[in-house]
C-alpha cells in the first residue's frame, strides 16, 4: 500500500536524516520508534506529502507521491492520507462537527453526513458535535482528531505521537481505537512515536537511529 525507498532528507549540510525503507499494507499496522531528534516528524511529513525529501521516493497506491505537482499532492493527501497530530489542532471558529465537514469539503468537495454522524457515534462524540473544539476535553479532542483522520476513508493513517501524553489506560484505549478504525476503513496504520510502551503492543516495528552528525 505505502512504501518508501532510500529516503533521505537534509535541512542543511550538517543536519541530514537517512531513513530505512518501510512498507505497510492495508489493514496492517507499522510502528516507527525513535528518540527525540532522530527525524520522526521529518519522516512523517515526508510520508504525508508535506515535505519533499532530498532523496528517495514514497509510493502510495502505485503513485510516486513526489512525482505529482504540488497542488496534486495536496489533493492526493486530502483523499488518501489521514493524519493524527501529536497536539490536536482544529479550526477554532467552527464546531466539532463542522471541522469534520470542512475536512471532507477541502479534500473531496462534498459532504457525507451519514459518515460524519457514524464516526461521531463510534467515537462517543455525538453529544459534543456542536461544541467549539476549545471547549472539549483533551480526550475528546484526541478522538475528534482521529475522527477527522478517518473522515475521508483514507488508504493510510499516519499518527504522530498519539499516546505520549497519555497514561497507560488511555494509551491502551487510543491504540485500540486507532487499530479498530483503521481496519474498519481498510487503511494502513503507521504510528510514529518515542513511546516504548507501544513496543509491547506491536510486534512489527522499525527503529530510527539517525545519529546527528
Amino acid at each position: 500500500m505505502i512504501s518508501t525507498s532510500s529516503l533521505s532528507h537534509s535541512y542543511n549540510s550538517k543536519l541530514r536524516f537517512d531513513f530505512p525503507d518501510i512498507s505497510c499494507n492495508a489493514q496492517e499496522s507499522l510502528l516507527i520508534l525513535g528518540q527525540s531528534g532522530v527525524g520522526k516528524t521529518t519522516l512523517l511529513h515526508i510520508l504525508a506529502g508535506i515535505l519533499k525529501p532530498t532523496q528517495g521516493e514514497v509510493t502510495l497506491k502505485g503513485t510516486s507521491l513526489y512525482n505529482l505537482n504540488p497542488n496534486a499532492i495536496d489533493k492526493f493527501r486530502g483523499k488518501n492520507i489521514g493524519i493524527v497530530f501529536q497536539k490536536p489542532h482544529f479550526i477554532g471558529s467552527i464546531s466539532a462537527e463542522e471541522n469534520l465537514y470542512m475536512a471532507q469539503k477541502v479534500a473531496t468537495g462534498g459532504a457525507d453526513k451519514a459518515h460524519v454522524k457514524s464516526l461521531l457515534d463510534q467515537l462517543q462524540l455525538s453529544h459534543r458535535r456542536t461544541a467549539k473544539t476549545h471547549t472539549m476535553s483533551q480526550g475528546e479532542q484526541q478522538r475528534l482528531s482521529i475522527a477527522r483522520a478517518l473522515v475521508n476513508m483514507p488508504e493510510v493513517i499516519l499518527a504522530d505521537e498519539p499516546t505520549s501524553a497519555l497514561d497507560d489506560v488511555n494509551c491502551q484505549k487510543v491504540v485500540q481505537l486507532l487499530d479498530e478504525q483503521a481496519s474498519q476503513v481498510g487503511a494502513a496504520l503507521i504510528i510514529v512515536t518515542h513511546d516504548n510502551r507501544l513496543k509491547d503492543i506491536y510486534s512489527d516495528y522499525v527503529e530510527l537511529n539517525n545519529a546527528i552528525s
Partner: protein
Amino acid sequence: MNLLRLAWKNIIHNPLTLLLNLILLALGIGLINFILLFNTQLKQKFENNLAGIDMVVGAKGSPLQMILSSMYQIDAPTGNISIKEAKPFLRDGHPLIKKAVPLSMGDSYRGYRIIGTDHSILELYGGELKEGKLWQNLYEVTVGANVAKSESLSLGSTFKSAHGFNDDEDLEHEHGALTVVGILEPTNSVLDQIILVSTESVWSVHDHDHDHEEENEEDSHVGHAHDDHAGHDHSGHDHSGHDHTEHDHASDHSSDHAGHNHDHAEDHSGHNHEHAHDHSDHSGHDHSGHEHAHTDDHRNDMSRAHLLTHADKDITSILIQFKSRTNFQALNMPRNINENTDLQAASPAYEINRLYDMMGIGTKALQWLALLISLVSAISIFVSLLNSLRQRKYELSLLRVLGGKPITLFSLILIEGLILALLGYVIGMLLSHFGMSLLGDSLSSKYNYQFQPWATHGKELLIFGITLLLGMGAAVIPAIMAYNTDIHKNLSVG
C-alpha cells in the same frame, strides 16, 4: 461547510475586532456617502428651482440673501421696492425681458410662505392646477402640493396668515381670512411649498391691520405696509392686540408712503370707495360690511397694468427671464441696475455657485476626514487579518494537510477581507441614508424643503467598488502570506 461559510465563521469568531473594523469602515463610508447624498440633493433642489430665472431684482442688501429669499424661500427678504421703481421691469414690451414675475412676501401660514404674485409664476415652475381654480379675487389662495398635503388643506379651507415667516400664532393677522380655491400638482420645485395669492391680497391684509393701528394710536403711522416688516425681527410683535405704542414703526422705514391706505382711492377716483374713507366707523372691529366693500372689481384685477397703477405700493422682488441669455445688454443689465439705481440685481446661477463654493470648503474638509477614517479602517482590517493569521497558522496548515491548495488559503483570507468590506458598505450606506433622513426631517420642519433620504445616486455604486477594493487591498498581503504558509515548519513546532 464551504469556504465562504468558514470565512464568515472566522470573522464572527472575534466579535470585538469585527465591531471595531465595522465601526471604522461604516463611519468612513457613511460619512462619504452622506456628504455626497446631501450635496447631490441640495444641488438638485437648487437647480430644479432655478427655473430659467436669469436675474432677480429687489432691494439693496446681500445678493445671496435676496436670491435665497426670492427663489428658495430661505432667509428673509432684503427689503422692498416700490412699484414705481419696479415698473420698468414689469411693464410689457421691455426689449430684453421675456418674463418678469413680481413677488410680495412678508406673511406665512404655519411656516409656509405666502407669496403675492400673479399667474405668471406658474409658467416659471411648470405649475398646473390639480383641483379648483387659480387665485383671482382678494383673499383667494392657491396652495402648493406640499402645503395642501401637510396642512390638510382642501378647496374651501380658510386660514389666517401670520406676520413673518415663523410659525407663530401671536403674529396672526386679525383680518383677511384666506380661502383655498385651488391646489397645485406637485412640481418638485419651490412651488410645492408656497401659498399663492394676489399682490392686492397681501397689501390688503396689511392695510387692514394698519387701519386699526391708526384707530388706536392717533399718531402718524403712515405707510406701514407689510413690506416694512420684511427682514426685521418680529418676535413678540403683537399685531392683533393693536398695542403698538412701544413700537415706533415710522422710524423703521424711510420711504414716504403717507396715506397709503387711501392710495387706491386716489388712483381710482372714478370708483366708489366708501370703505376707504370711513375708518372711524370701524370701532368695535366689526368688518362684516367692510370685506364686501373690498370685493370691488379693481381689487380683483390681477392684470399687470392694474398692478402698475399703484406706483407707491411696494413689492419685494421681481424674478426675471431674459429673452436671450447671450445678449450682451442682458448680461450687463444686473451691473447697470446695481450701479445706476437704488435697486439690486443678482444672477441666481452666480450666487448659487458662490454658495456652493462657500459650502465646498466645509464639504472638502469633511470629505478628507471621511477618507482618512476609511484609510484607518483599511489599516485596521489589515492588522487584524495579519494578527488572526498569526493565531491561525495551525488552522491554515491544517487546511493544507486536509487537502487544501495554497490558493484555497489565499481565497479564504481574501474572502474575509471582502466580507468585512461588504458589511462595512451596507452599514455605512444605512447610516448615511438614515442621517440624511434625520437631516431631511429637520430641514423640512425648518424650511419646508422635502428631501428623499432613501433615494440612491450613481456614485453609490462607485463607492461600492472602492470599498471592495479597500477590503481587497487590506487583505491581499495577509492572503499572500497565507498562500505561502510553510506547513512543514508550522506543524513541526510544538
